[in-house]
């Protein structure tokens, strides 16, 4: 169907227990948090999460949604150690596949190209291969080099938050850095995007900005309009991250750190309810872009 508009609940309805779910963005940046919150409002469980992790990973771990995590880091940048992820790890609550940041995107690319693996030097000489059960391959050429075979990170679904889309899934992603969002999309059987702005036909409105189309619409299965949908992560140029919200979320993890007691504040019954707790759309729009 070319009209890919869906509600957030319809998108989450396409997901099922035990799925491998990729989440775009990077740490506290460009995270599809509204879709993550919709997952948190659902009964989904036993997920394998593949992410350059931030509060998306922390919240899903805190809520007991995660069976296994594929990660290179989980961090909120200015708050380096993600508090809810730490709790889950230190409780031995989740399985992990820990990867280097570069290996991670290499695994997404292997999945996108429908290859079983891609070779890399990265990981040799560290504990990663042994801990992750990664195998080596030998170059068949004269050099005979031994390399790690980075397995494809095949995703059942990926979630992204983009600046704009039309109903066919022609997306535009702005901001200085779009990280590996395009590769999450190509590595996934289905990709669902939330967007700050939804237009009918992209070419009628923004034909001069087609270079912002970071991934082709063939890879987009569903589109939903959720302004402020990255909050509390950053979504340049629309808004920066909400460090006050991250601070409150971090403080909430301290003793006793019971997610059920605090989740209403960080997930809410719905998006309007959630945003109202952080000053509404006006307050989000006014968040300054982060300076590094």
């Amino acid at each position, binding site marked *: 169907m070319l009209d890919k508009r869906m509600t957030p609940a319809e998108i989450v309805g396409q997901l099922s227990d035990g799925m491998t779910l990729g989440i775009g963005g990077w740490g506290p940046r460009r995270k599809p948090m509204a879709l993550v919150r919709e997952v948190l409002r659902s009964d989904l469980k036993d997920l394998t999460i593949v992410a350059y*992790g931030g509060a998306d990973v922390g919240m899903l771990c805190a809520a007991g949604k995660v069976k296994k995590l594929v990660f290179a*880091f989980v961090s909120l940048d200015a708050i380096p*150690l993600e508090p809810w992820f730490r709790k889950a790890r230190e409780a031995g609550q989740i399985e992990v596949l*820990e990867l280097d940041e570069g290996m991670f995107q290499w695994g997404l690319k292997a999945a996108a190209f429908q290859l079983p693996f891609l070779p890399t030097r990265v990981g040799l000489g*560290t504990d990663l291969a042994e801990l992750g059960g990664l195998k080596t391959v*030998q170059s068949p050429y004269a050099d*005979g080099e031994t*390399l790690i075979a980075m397995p494809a990170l095949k995703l059942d679904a990926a979630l992204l938050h983009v600046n704009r889309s039309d109903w066919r899934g022609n997306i535009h992603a702005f901001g200085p*850095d779009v*990280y590996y969002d395009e590769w999450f999309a190509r590595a996934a059987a289905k990709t669902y995007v939330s967007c700050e702005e939804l237009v009918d036909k992209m070419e009628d409105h923004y034909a001069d900005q087609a270079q912002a189309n970071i991934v082709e619409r063939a890879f987009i299965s569903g589109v939903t309009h959720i302004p402020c949908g990255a909050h509390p992560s950053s979504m340049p140029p629309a808004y920066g991250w909400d460090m006050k919200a991250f601070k409150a979320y971090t403080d909430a993890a301290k003793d006793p750190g019971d997610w059920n007691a605090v989740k209403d504040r960080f997930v809410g019954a719905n998006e309007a309810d959630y945003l109202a707790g952080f000053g509404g759309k006006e307050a989000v729009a006014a968040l300054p872009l982060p300076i590094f």
Partner: protein
Amino acid sequence: MTDVTLAELCIFACSEAFRNNGEIIATGVGPVPRLAASLAKLTHSPELMMTDGECYLVEQPVPLGPRKYDDRKAAGYLPFSRFFDAAVWTGRRHAMVTPTQIDRFGQINLSQLGGTHQQPKTQMLGVRGFPGNTIYHPNSFFFPSHTTRVFVAGEVDMVSGVGYNPAKRVPGGNYSAVSLRSIVTNLCVMDFGGPDNAVRVVSLHPGVTFAQVQEATGFDLIDAVAGETALPGAEELAIIASLDPHNIRAGAIKDNPLARIPA
């Protein structure tokens, strides 16, 4: 000059690691390494490339701390989405970082302490880009607190970065780009210039003895001390101050001591 702080001395010492590196990306993570890379670019090594801390390449290093979003002047572009293609996996980078642990082989750990991989006692960041950084390009280190908790006996709890440990090297792998350069701490400057890349102390900060450094280190060090670590001059101090107008460096080392205790 008696009012040079130890942090400023360390920035100056760290900046030496970036000398004669050529046209590579100099990355300093944390205030002292970042100021060091910027100082190197503004003094002896203008050929260095660096980002604004986000994804734009700048020829004028950006200062630390609050400033206007558009203050940086972009000369180029290096987003994460091409960082591995362009900087890391081509070897065109030198990073200076602060892991949680380092051992006698130069193996580093940023991931977890104690316990098991399934249930660590303390979960930290994760390995981040350390495995790729260490097998592809030069790396140096800055530690604001030189203790046996950082410079561990035996090996680090989780090997997040490649070192010179022969037992850890899968046969047939290509380790030719592994290049651990400088270790700067609040006590001294070290390198990996000993036999089989053993760690040597090459200069001591004013008032520090080799015995003191050895005492604070969990493994045997080689005494190759050639003298006292150099203090930055007036020009370097002025550049450091201009790059750090909010004096964030004052928080880099506990109690922000002076480099030389006044007599």
